[in-house]
C-alpha cells in the first residue's frame, strides 16, 4: 500500500510546499479569537485563513459550500494532483473516505440559529443540506468527477485510523485501485467555547507534546489532510503504509522516529511517556496545525514528507521536562520507518507505520 499523494490545508497554508515550509521554519504563534462567553478574554486558535481556501478554479461549482467542505475539497484535490496519477474520470477506480470527529458543526449550529430565530417551518434548506457530515465528501466526489465509493466516518477516538484500515481493505478486495483517505475539522465559536470549558488551553499558544501531563493543554486547530493510497507502486510514492496497529497488536522492531499525537485533546497524556522513554527519537508536529481529534492525519502527512525528503525536521516546540530523545534539529537522515502513535479516548494505543 503506497502513499502516492498528499494534500494539506492548515493554519500555515495549503499544499505540500506550505507543509514543508512550516516544518523548516518551525513554530509560529496562533491567532487569538475573542471568547464570546468571557468578555475581554480570548483563546489561541490555529485557524485557516479565508485566502487559503479561495480557489476559483477548483471551487467553481461550490458557490454555496461552507468552509468545512472547501477545506476538504482543496486538500483532496491537491492530494490527487500531487500524485500525478490520472484518475479515471467517470470511472470507479478511486474511493473516498473522509474521517471527522465533529463534522460541519459550524454550519450545524447556524442551522440551529435558523430554527430558533425563524421557527421550525422557516429554515434554510441550503444550510440543512450542508450541516450533514457527508456533504464535504460529496463535494470532493463532485470536484473530482469521481463515481467510486464515497464514505464519511466519525469517531472521537481513532476515526482516521479506522479510515486507513478500511481503505486498505478496499484496495485488498479490489473495490478500488486508489483511495483518498483524509480528515477535516473546523473550529468555530461554539467549539472554541466547548474547548475552553472542557480542555486545558495553552495560554501562550504552545502545544507541548513532550510534557506528558496528567492535565495537558491544547490549542484548538482546524484544517484538512488527505493522503492518496494506491495499491500499486507508481514510482511517485512518498512511502508505504506498512500497517495500522491497534491495542494488542504491535509492529516489530523500533522505527527511526516515533511521532506522538499528544496535543492536549485528551484528559491525560501521561500514557505517552512510556513509549517516549524508549530508545527511539520522538517528534511532535501538531504545534504547527493545532489540536484536533483527527490530528493523526496531519502527522501521517508529515511522516510521508520526511520519508520522501529523507529529512528529520526539528520539533516546533521543544520543551522537554522529561529529557526524552526529542528531535531538536533539522537534518538529513536515512529514514526507513516512522510510526505515528496516538492514544484514544480510553487510552487505547494506535500506531500507524509508514516506511520508505
Amino acid at each position, binding site marked *: 500500500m503506497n502513499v502516492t499523494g498528499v494534500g494539506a490545508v492548515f493554519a500555515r497554508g495549503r499544499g505540500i510546499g506550505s507543509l514543508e515550509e512550516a516544518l523548516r521554519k518551525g513554530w509560529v504563534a496562533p491567532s487569538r479569537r475573542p471568547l464570546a462567553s468571557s468578555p475581554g478574554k480570548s483563546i489561541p486558535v490555529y485557524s485557516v485563513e479565508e485566502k487559503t481556501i479561495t480557489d476559483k478554479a477548483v471551487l467553481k461549482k461550490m458557490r454555496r459550500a461552507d468552509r468545512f467542505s472547501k477545506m476538504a475539497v482543496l486538500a483532496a484535490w491537491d492530494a490527487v494532483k500531487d500524485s500525478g496519477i490520472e484518475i479515471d474520470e467517470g470511472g470507479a477506480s478511486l474511493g473516498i473516505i473522509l474521517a471527522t470527529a465533529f463534522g460541519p458543526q459550524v454550519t450545524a449550529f447556524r442551522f440551529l440559529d435558523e430554527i430558533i430565530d425563524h421557527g421550525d417551518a422557516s429554515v434554510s434548506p441550503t444550510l*440543512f443540506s450542508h450541516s450533514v457530515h457527508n*456533504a464535504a465528501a460529496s463535494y470532493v466526489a463532485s470536484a473530482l468527477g469521481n*463515481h467510486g465509493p*464515497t464514505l464519511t466516518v466519525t*469517531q472521537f477516538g481513532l476515526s482516521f485510523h479506522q479510515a486507513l484500515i478500511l481503505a486498505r481493505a478496499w484496495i485488498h478486495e479490489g473495490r478500488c485501485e486508489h483511495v483518498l483517505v483524509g480528515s477535516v475539522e473546523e473550529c468555530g465559536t461554539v467549539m472554541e467555547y466547548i474547548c475552553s470549558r472542557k480542555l486545558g488551553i495553552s495560554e501562550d499558544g504552545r502545544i507541548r507534546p513532550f510534557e506528558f501531563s496528567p492535565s495537558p493543554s491544547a490549542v484548538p486547530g482546524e484544517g484538512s489532510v488527505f493522503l492518496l493510497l494506491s495499491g500499486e507502486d507508481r514510482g511517485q510514492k512518498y512511502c508505504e503504509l506498512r500497517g495500522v496497529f491497534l491495542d494488542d497488536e504491535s509492529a516489530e522492531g523500533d522505527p527511526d522516529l516515533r511521532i506522538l499525537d499528544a496535543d492536549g485533546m485528551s484528559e491525560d497524556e501521561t500514557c505517552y511517556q512510556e513509549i517516549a522513554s524508549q530508545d527511539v527519537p520522538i517528534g511532535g508536529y501538531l504545534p504547527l496545525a493545532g489540536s484536533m481529534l483527527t490530528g493523526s492525519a496531519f502527522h501521517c502527512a508529515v511522516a510521508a514528507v520526511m520519508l520522501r525528503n529523507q529529512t528529520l525536521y526539528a520539533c516546533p516546540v521543544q520543551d522537554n521536562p522529561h529529557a526524552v530523545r526529542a528531535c531538536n534539529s533539522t537534518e538529513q537522515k536515512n529514514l526507513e520507518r516512522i510510526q505515528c502513535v496516538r492514544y484514544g479516548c480510553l487510552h487505547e494505543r494506535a500506531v500507524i507505520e509508514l516506511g520508505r
Partner: protein
Amino acid sequence: MKAANVVITGVGAISAAGADLAETLATFQKGRPRAGAVSLFETSLTYPVFEVKNIRRKGRDDEMRSIRLALCAVEEALMDAGLRSGLSLFKVGVCLGTTVASQLNDMDFYRAYRSEKTASMRSVDRYLKGNLAEAVGRAIEIRGPSLTVVNACSSGADAIGVALSWLRDGVCDVAIAGGADELNIVPLCGFGALGILSDSICAPFDRDRKGLNLGEGAGVLVLESEEMARKRGKPSLLHLSGYGSAADAFHLTAPIPDGSGLEAALKKAMSEAGIHAGDVCFVNAHGTATPDNDRIEGSVFRRIFGDEIKFLSSKGFTGHTLGAAGGLEAAFTAAALREGWIPASAGFAQEDDEIQLSPVRETTAISGRFAVSTSLAFGGNNAAIVMSRGALDASGAQNRSGV
C-alpha cells in the same frame, strides 16, 4: 485475495413497525402503518411521523435515544446469533450508520449558549460519550474495531458494506453492522424546508405520492465468516453476498436524473455476488415516496431487472429512518429470505406512468435465492446489498438456480 464467504447469523430490528423482528413481521402481515403526530419534542410542524412507542430496553438518563434503539437491535441480533455471551472469545467489530447521533443537536444547550453565553456541559458530555459505534462497542464490551458511518440515508447499508470488507480482510472475526437513528427536530425542520415531507401517510412509488414521513429505529445484522459460524456451531444459510457503492457526483440533495449512480452500485453488488439481474427474486427498495427518488429508483429497477421484478418499500411501515434505514431494510430483507415472503408495499395504490412499474400490493411468497436492498442518500451516495439463501457448493460458489 481469497474472499471469505460471509454469513448472516443474527438479525435484530426495532421501528414503529415493532419492538423486535417478530412483532415487525406481524405488523407487516396486518399491513397497518402506525404514523402520528410528533410526541418526542415540541414542534409547530404537523407532518406525520413514525415514532417507536415501545423501547423495551431501559436506558441510562444520559444515554442518547439512538443508542438505546441500537442496543435493542444489537441485543436481539446477538441473541439470534447465539452470541449473547462469549463475545470476548472473538475479535468483534461494530460498524453502525447514523445521522442524528453524530451531531450536537441539543437545542437546550444551544439556546443557553446563545442567550447566556454559557451553558451546562452535560449535553456536551452526553454527546462525547454518544458516538454510536463507540458507545455500542463499550456497552457490549467488544475488543475489535468500531466505526460510525455518517453517509446520510445510506449510512446503514454502507456500514454493512464496511463490515463485509472488514471480514474479508480479516480485520475482525465477527461484525455487528447496521444503523440506528432517533427522530429529531433538526432533520424534521430540514426535510420540511426541502419540501419533501408529506402531510399524509407516505405512499412509496404511488402515482400521487407527496413525500416522505420521518421515522426512527435500528436494524442490525451479525455477520461472520462461514467457517467461523460453522466452528462455533451456528451454521447459517443466509449469506451477505455482495455490496456495491457509487457516487452520483452530481448534486448535494438531488439524485442524478438518469440513475446511473444507483445502477453502478447495483451492478457492483451483483457482480460481487456472482449473479445476474435475473437471479434476483425481490428488491427491498429505498422507496422514500419522494417524487424524485421513486421515479429514478423505479426506472433503474425496470432497466436492470425488467417489468416482472417483485419489489417493495418498507417505509410505509417504518417511515424514513435516515441512518437506520439501510440497516432496517437489510434486516427485513434477511428476514424475508428466511421466511419466504415479502409484505405488501404499504401505501401504494396506483402505478405512476413515469415509473411504469408497481411494487407488490399484497403479502407475496418468494421462491428465489437472491435478494437486493438499495439505499440512496443526500450527497449522491448509492448503495446496494445482495443477500442470498442457500448452501454453497464445494468450490464456495453459490448455486444460482435452486436449492
